[in-house]
């Protein structure tokens, strides 16, 4: 059984007044196996954020199903959704989404506190993660006191601390400089190597080239996919660039 199964996913946004409707997702199908590192690429408006929101249970599909470890997300009652997100999913966002009222430490611990976890277990997990992500001295600082890259590492720690089934990352390097981006991508690779499944939405070829597989989404469907196989990051980068060029020109011919 795959970790994540997305079947015939369709999402149509309808304006409340007037009949204008926009089709964000037409018919999306893919599966993700345990331990995979997948990037979803597409241009703005291709529907990739909608897709991520549906997988994150922050939005509901018009039709089609999403299964996480066999459980269909639409069958989870509304009041259980928050707990489900907390226990199974970890989020990393482009704008970090750290709470400015909490120190870095408390931001990372937030999901565990909500789960009423034992203090000692919280400390143990925090210690492990902060060593791995190099957050040691930053823990008692506040988000406004640290750099973008550090904020994003804190956000990764917050996503990882619940040992989620799946990490969902939405343009995680979108607000970072190239050095911080490199660090972040290396961290993603590292945690993936330890068995963590990651699904990342991005339009950065650099970010995608670190993944094990890239799905290309366009006009609401998965248009193409690439596996990295034994290629180096640079070779894979080149391959993605070629594919993108092909898709863009191909797209133009089709239009």
């Amino acid at each position, binding site marked *: 059984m795959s970790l994540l199964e997305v079947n015939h996913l369709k999402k149509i946004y309808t304006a409340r007044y007037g009949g204008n409707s926009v089709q964000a997702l037409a018919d999306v199908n893919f599966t993700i196996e345990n331990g995979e590192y997948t990037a979803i690429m597409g241009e703005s408006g291709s529907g990739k954020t909608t897709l991520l929101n549906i997988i994150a249970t922050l939005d509901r599909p018009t039709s089609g199903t999403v299964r996480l470890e066999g459980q269909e997300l639409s069958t989870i009652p509304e009041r259980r959704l928050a707990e489900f997100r907390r226990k199974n999913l970890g989020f990393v966002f482009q704008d970090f989404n*750290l709470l400015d009222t909490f120190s870095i430490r*408390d931001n990372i611990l937030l999901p565990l506190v909500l789960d009423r976890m034992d203090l000692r277990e919280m400390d143990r997990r925090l210690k492990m993660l902060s060593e791995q992500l190099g957050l040691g001295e930053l823990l008692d600082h506040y988000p406004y006191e640290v750099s973008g890259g550090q904020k994003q590492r804190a956000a990764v720690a917050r996503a990882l601390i619940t040992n989620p089934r799946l990490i969902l990352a939405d343009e995680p390097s979108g607000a970072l400089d190239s050095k911080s981006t490199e660090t972040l991508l290396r961290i993603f690779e590292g945690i993936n190597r330890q068995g963590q499944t990651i699904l990342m939405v991005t339009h950065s070829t650099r970010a995608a080239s670190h993944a094990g597989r890239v799905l290309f989404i366009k006009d609401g469907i998965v248009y193409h996919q690439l596996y990295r196989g034994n290629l180096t990051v640079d070779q894979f980068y080149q391959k993605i660039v070629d594919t993108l060029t092909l898709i863009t020109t191909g797209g133009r011919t089709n239009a």
Partner: protein
Amino acid sequence: MRSFLFYPRLAVSGMRRNKILYVPYLLAASLMVMLFYILSSMTWIVGNSGIKGGGSMSVLLMLSSVVCGLLTVLILFYLNGYVIKQRSREFGLYSVLGLGKGNLCLLLFWEILFSCIGSLICGILAGAVFSQLMYLLLLNITRLPVDLEIWVPMGAVNITVYLFLAAWGIVLLRNVIRIFRSDPIEILRRTSQGEQEPRSRWLIALTGACTLTAGYALALTVQDPSMVLAIFLPATILVIIATYCIFSALSIVVLKAMRKNRRFYYRPDNFINVSGMLYRMKQNAVGLANICILASAVLVTISSCVCLYIGEEDMLDSLYPREVAVTVYRNKYAEEPEPDLLAATQEIAQSYDMELLDPITVTKCVVYVHQNGSVITSTHETSQINRTLEYRLLDELNAELGSSYTLSDQEVLVFHTKDFTEGMTLQIDGSNFTVVTLPESDALNTYLTQTGASSNPIFFFRDKDTLMRARQMDESATLSYVLWFDYDIEAVNAGLFQQNLYDHLNCSEGNFGTRFKSEARTDFYSMYGSLLFVGLFFVALFLITTVLIIYYKQITEGYEDRQRFRIMRQVGLSDAEVRTSIRRQVQMVFFLPIIVALVHIAFAFPALQKIMTLFEMHNTPLFIGCVAVSALVFLGFYTGVYLITARTYYHIVTSAPQS
């Protein structure tokens, strides 16, 4: 090409877009115009009406309208701060889009012009309508005959217009300065920057704790009613300082201590609430302290005004145990013989075919002294005076009670036993007196109320010589002989008797007086009635301010919490949990000032009650009732405001964030 109407249009659309800010603002401004107009037109109307006591009432109204006008300007200025702060982002955007600072000022000018004209027209129209109603109310509560004349004093209209033109002018000036000082790009950026964590300011927290203790101690320890006025202002100032310190520093110190306790802090509810409150307190400390002080002021004003008004008959009864008081004064050097008041008055009454009912004579002497333990010395130093005593004669007490208490000329009899215990030695200017105390009894209390006793301790001396010896040193102490009596007010000659009593008693000018309860009643109602009337206006003004501060706080917080709300949902807090935790924080912020205000009132109560006794208001249950009812009504009103503003708040929090 820009038409002339460009800025007016932009101003109107800007205000319309921000109606969540402007509707309450303009409503409050109109209400304040109305209040001010009514008060000042009342000055004119009462002054011209020729009603009894109209002169002093009109002066009171005029003074109040001056204070009201000043407060209005301050409040308008303060509220403007909230409104303009919320709009600074919008102005930043305008200037990025190409409006210069001059253009922004022009825009502000039009906005304020519209606000000014709108609120003046609405306020004065409403004021003109309501002022007639208010005049009726004033006549009603002062028990004056209704004599309604409908007119709109142009003087009041002019003053209102000038005052508010000036007030809005100041507001405009403030905003223009703000625009010129600010860097629009900076404004745009600042809103997205994180707030710094509040620091613990131990010194201020400590100051708060100290001033609060000192203020409360002052209010609680004052014993003598004559001292209470002297300490009430310093105590109030101490408590006001303490309130600001508590809200701005002590709260943060306490919250940080909570955060240090890991077992307490790392639980879902406490985790979110404590950290949220830390930030709310930092931003809202001054606003909350203001609300707290305003609430205390409202409660004190309304409860004492209402109490004085309701308790007028009680006060009259305590000041006037009988219908008439005839008093003859004799100072130390008087050579006139001791008058036989009763006989003289009876004679006059007989000539009018009247009869004196229940006459009672009291000889008394009020002295100001310094008491240190059991040593009492008379003093002329105002700063030394800490007691007011009343000396009386034992014979009169015995005669009235049918008792046969005896004293030696070295003894003094005291009822007021709180500070004077049996066997205590009192040293009055070199003479020693041993204190003999009487237990309180109904007969004694009746005697005291029947003879117009105030709350001062009463010392009974064996005879007049002893009394004279006790007051010997005190140059200013005047001996007074008072005759109290009732008479048949319905009798044919009652009016004539009342008018001529004064002329018939042959006493030298200035050493003699008659007082009538019926006259005092008229004065009381006009005095306390106008006080209540004016009090109601100030309460209205305070309430408007409180409501608007609360409302703007909620809105400001709503915009800030919106982002937080979104992040918490993503991290795994359910909507219901977010709602609960936000509601709890909002409630805390909302009800904290009221709770503190109620504590202030509770501590101030003994002092307030003593102030009431200065007005001869001794009915403590009535005063407790007035305070309790005022507090309940206020709490109800406040809760209503909370429920209404909370809706606006949730609407903001759950709406999609601005891009």
